């Protein structure tokens, strides 16, 4: 086995396989990172940053869920009125 072939067995070179059903759950850690960075850009120090980031994280998740529900409702309405 060559050096490059050995390297191909490690992360960053050989892609990982994730189950199709797990795709949506990857949204949560990413949304938390977005919330942390956003709150950090508005913070004087790290005091209270975690609490603020959690509130922003919840806002993002609830907002995205509301948009998804509204889009689903619109989709169903279009199918109902224009079958």
């Amino acid at each position: 086995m060559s050096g490059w072939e050995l390297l191909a067995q490690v992360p960053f070179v050989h892609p990982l396989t994730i189950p199709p059903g797990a795709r949506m759950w990857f949204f949560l850690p990413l949304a938390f990172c977005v919330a942390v960075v956003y709150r950090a850009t508005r913070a004087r120090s790290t005091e209270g940053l975690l609490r603020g980031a959690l509130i922003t994280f919840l806002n993002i998740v609830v907002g995205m869920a509301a948009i998804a529900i509204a889009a689903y409702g619109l989709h169903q309405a279009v199918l109902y009125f224009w079958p």
Partner: protein
Amino acid sequence: MQAGILAWILPGAGHYWLGHKKLAAVFFAAISLPYLTGAAIGGVKTTLNPFLNHWLFLAELGVGSYTAAGFFLANSVGGIDARETAAIIRRTGAFSALSPERQNARESQIVRYVSYYPSADVAQIYLAVAGLLNLLAILDAIARAQTGGEPVFYHELATAAARRAEGAA
């Protein structure tokens, strides 16, 4: 400006240079985690390739050192560079002129490095978001360097208060 360049090279480095060491650690963790997760899930061969997805690579360039290292790795692994990888996946260029047998042989050389749905989707979203988040961190580092460490939000509040005081006087 140095703070912005440092923040571009490594997430959080600009804030560290300005003396905000805890904030620097927060930026480093919150940007490195999604970037490295995306690169690990998708593999560098297809996710850090400017010849495959220009816009994705532009977003990834928000984190300079990681993208440079990933691009170097993508160019080196498997003995096929990034440009040729894109040609094989898109079946264009010199690859399209090869015989079917040679095309199959070239494809089999890169197939273990290529990510597919759903991994490719997740990897691209993570990498693009991490790169764009670091742009936010770069702008914040530049702003803090100009305002003596205050984030723009508080600096604007202080400026508005000073204007109101001037107006009242």
